[in-house]
């Protein structure tokens, strides 16, 4: 008896979480192909046909192409820069001994405890003062630093697992510090690059509050802000709102499904130091 109740409860729990995770997305996806009158009648079913007009309207109402370009540029640059900076720092911290090592590690882990929202106004002021407000460069630098603690930690724990003998052999053969790092260490660290890179990419792609506060004009903004435009200015055009949501969400979902292993191991590694 007890076993049956447990089985039923298990099935119920799993059904509920699958429904709440999938149904809202599926409904928005289907609705994005419906006509406005179909949407307003509150029908639950499939669209009567694939109407792409909502997408056309969405791209017409907001400069989604510009947002897309900015998002891609900022996410890629923010990820590459983050990986370079962090792999260098992590390598030195793991392999070298120097006096301020503890301070450096403490400093980077501090980044995890500070709620981003607390820094909204100071960042805004500092970016204004350095003429980086409302520039893509500004956002790239901020995102690079934002993911620094996590990437640094992932890199550090991975480099620790690489045997030192390879580097030692390279040094004996007369290879310098930089060359050993680039030719021996970096190729071995590829899995960590993949793991940390995916997490960092998603962070840049999805970030909203800093993108909103640190940029001022449409030409410099990223995709999540597009949704804010729709919410505040075109809230009556439901079909376009659905289409815009789909357009923003799809890349994140595809990235996750294709690189699931990296996302999961990155999250597991990146959160444990918390």
């Amino acid at each position: 008896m007890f076993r049956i109740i447990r089985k039923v409860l298990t099935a119920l729990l799993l059904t509920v979480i699958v429904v709440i995770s999938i149904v809202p997305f599926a409904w928005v996806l289907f609705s994005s192909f419906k006509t406005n009158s179909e949407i307003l009648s509150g029908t639950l079913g499939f669209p009567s046909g694939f109407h792409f007009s909502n997408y056309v309207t969405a791209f017409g109402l907001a400069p989604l192409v510009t947002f897309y370009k900015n998002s891609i540029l900022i996410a890629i640059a923010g990820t590459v820069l983050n990986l370079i900076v962090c792999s260098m720092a992590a390598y030195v911290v793991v392999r070298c001994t120097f006096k301020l090592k503890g301070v450096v590690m403490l400093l980077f882990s501090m980044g995890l405890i500070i709620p981003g929202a607390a820094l909204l106004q100071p960042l805004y002021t500092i970016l204004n003062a350095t003429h980086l407000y409302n520039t893509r460069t500004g956002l790239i630098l901020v995102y690079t630093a934002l993911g620094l603690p996590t990437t640094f930690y992932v890199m550090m724990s991975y480099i620790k697992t690489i045997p030192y003998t390879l580097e030692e052999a390279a040094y004996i053969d007369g290879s310098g510090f930089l060359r050993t790092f680039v030719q021996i260490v970096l190729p071995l660290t590829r899995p960590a690059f993949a793991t940390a890179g995916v997490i960092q990419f998603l962070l840049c792609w999805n970030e909203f509050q800093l993108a909103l506060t640190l940029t001022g004009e449409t030409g410099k903004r990223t995709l999540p802000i597009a949704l804010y435009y729709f919410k505040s200015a075109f809230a009556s055009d439901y079909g376009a709102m659905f289409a815009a949501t789909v357009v923003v969400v799809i890349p994140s979902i595809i990235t996750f499904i294709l690189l699931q292993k990296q996302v999961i191991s990155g999250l597991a590694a990146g959160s444990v130091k918390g």
Partner: protein
Amino acid sequence: MTKNKKWIVLFLLPGILLFSFVFLGPIGVLFGTSFTNWSIGKEISFVGLKNFKYLFTEDQTFVDGLKNTIVWILLQATFHVLIGTTVAIVLAKKKWYSSAIRTIYFIPNVISSAALGMLFLCVMNPQYGLVNSFITKITGEGFTQNWFMDPKSAFFAVTMTWLPYAGLVTILVMAEMSSVSEDVYEAAKIDGASSFQTDIYVVLPLMKNIIGTSVVLAATSMLQKLDIIMMTTNGGPGSRTMNMPMYLYKTVFTNNNYGLANAQGVLLVILGLIVLKSIRKMFHMDAKE
């Protein structure tokens, strides 16, 4: 070694510079200006603790936001983690659907929270939203609850946009569970424990650290929830769904009162530290392995 010193500095410098630019500098500005009267176009002047005193004694919206934030932290640290852990334990019994469900459950966590906010704004729309259409369909009567705008349901509606979506907790706990040795299950079985008993009395205690980490992550995420609130209620109706980040944002960009905003930022950082410290204490996480 002296030659290496040059490289150590060169390799660390970019990271430290960036970190200073985005964290250390702003933290300095944050704490420094929280004791000042500073708003747009006005001379900045030192006022001591006046901002803090004002927030707690005269600013009802701030107090409401603080209360809501604390309630959300408590809900997230308990129910959210409980849901995620339960799902992890269920999915850890490797069935054909386990990894598929894990993937599906995690999807709401990988998309932009702004998009999630938009999604719920549509799903809970009073006229054409999925929730109301569904209720209308099964009851046969018109149902037009305005979830996000009705003071009675707004807090609940906002909470539902994050409370049940514990995919991250599930993934973290499952990753930790996969490192539990088969011997442990074997031993429990030999001692006559049912699989339910094994989960509760043997496996769960082994998960203490990762659950503690999940509680920290879940609780502190509530100090950052600006995007979903902005997309759905803007803190309203009244200050029913106001939280600290939302009010801070309004203080900066609507009221342009920078000194007051940074005092709130300082309180946000302090609240974060209190939350972190107390959870670590509760889970005895300070004892390093």
